[in-house]
């Protein structure tokens, strides 16, 4: 799927540039995109190390196990194939928590850590497991309690009530996350009916 999207993005861009005569801009964009990719990973590098290090402490002190046990009922039902006391469960719970609090900087490293842990449970390393798909979908549907950047931008734009959009964000977030979960089960049932993956 990503293969086609990526191909489509680039082909569409190049063909449109040919038609509209913007090839110069595209050439420039190609070079700067490589730089940007590296810059982004450098930005990520520090935060990634920071949270991996803190996670390691939280793991060894039993904090993550306690957190998982606390939210056990909710997650063991949704991720039946992930053992309750597995590191993957703890990483997922922490990543959801970071997302929920709007800590975007922490959410990405923690999410990637969770995916790494889920991969250790995977028997077919090329194919996503049910748990990975569902975890990814909940993350992508952005269950957020405090959207920090949006509030900051509204403040900067001179809003009289920058945080006033929070209830709307909660309701809307709830709907998009619910949609993601419902469609996950629909697609899964449909997939099983067609062929076994």
């Amino acid at each position, binding site marked *: *799927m990503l293969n086609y*999207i990526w191909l489509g993005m*680039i082909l*569409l*861009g190049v063909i*449109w*540039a040919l038609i*509209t005569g913007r090839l110069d*801009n*595209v050439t*420039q*964009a*190609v070079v700067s995109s*490589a730089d940007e*990719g590296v810059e*982004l*990973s450098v930005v990520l*590098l520090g935060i*990634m190390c920071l949270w*991996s*290090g803190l996670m390691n*402490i*939280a793991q*060894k*002190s039993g*904090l993550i196990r306690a957190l998982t046990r606390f939210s056990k009922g909710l997650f063991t039902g949704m991720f039946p194939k992930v053992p309750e006391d597995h590191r993957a469960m703890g990483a997922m719970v922490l990543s959801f928590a970071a997302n929920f609090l709007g*800590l975007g900087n922490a959410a*990405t*490293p923690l*999410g990637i850590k969770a995916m*790494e842990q889920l*991969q250790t449970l995977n028997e077919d390393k*090329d*194919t*996503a497991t049910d748990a990975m*798909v569902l975890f*990814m979908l909940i*993350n*992508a549907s*952005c269950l957020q309690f*405090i*959207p920090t950047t*949006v509030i900051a931008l*509204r403040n900067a*734009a*001179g*809003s009289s009530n*920058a*945080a*006033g*959009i929070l209830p*709307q*964000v909660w309701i*809307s977030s709830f709907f*998009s996350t619910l*949609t*993601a979960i419902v*469609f*996950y089960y629909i697609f899964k049932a449909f*997939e099983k009916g067609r062929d076994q993956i």
Partner: protein
Amino acid sequence: MMIMDWLSKAAIPCLIAVILVLGAWKRIPVFDTFLQGAKEGLSTTIKILPVLVGIMLGIEVLKASGALDMLVSLIGPVAVFFGIPQEIIPMAILRPISGSASLGLLNQQLKEYGPDSYIGKTLSVMMGTTETIFYSIAIYFGAIGVKKTRFTMWVALISGLSGIISSVIICRILP
């Protein structure tokens, strides 16, 4: 809302303090343990670097060629037909593709329409409700080398669309 504001500022420092205090209480050599874990962050980030370069290439080519603007003007009339305000179309298309670009757009549009107008509110709620789907799916699966993502992209797109629609509706109901 003061509490919210404070909570969002206090969350990270307090979390770090709790992790460290608990670690020390359990007699764990906290700094050594931190370093050991931080090293893993290094290898993970190196695995993501090629993914980021690839994703950025796609996004930048799409933007620089003007194809993204073309898509916006093409989808615009269809969306308006379904009752989605024309002003939010660029954001709806940009949001799943690029986080930095959509933040830039939000900044600019909030100033243009006013943060407390209907459009300004809808844009803010949309930004808080939806994610940069392409980017996060590519990074998360790219980091662990999973190639077959099954139906993840489809459901993520459906959920993103429902986020856009519910933002529009909710901002109309709750002004």
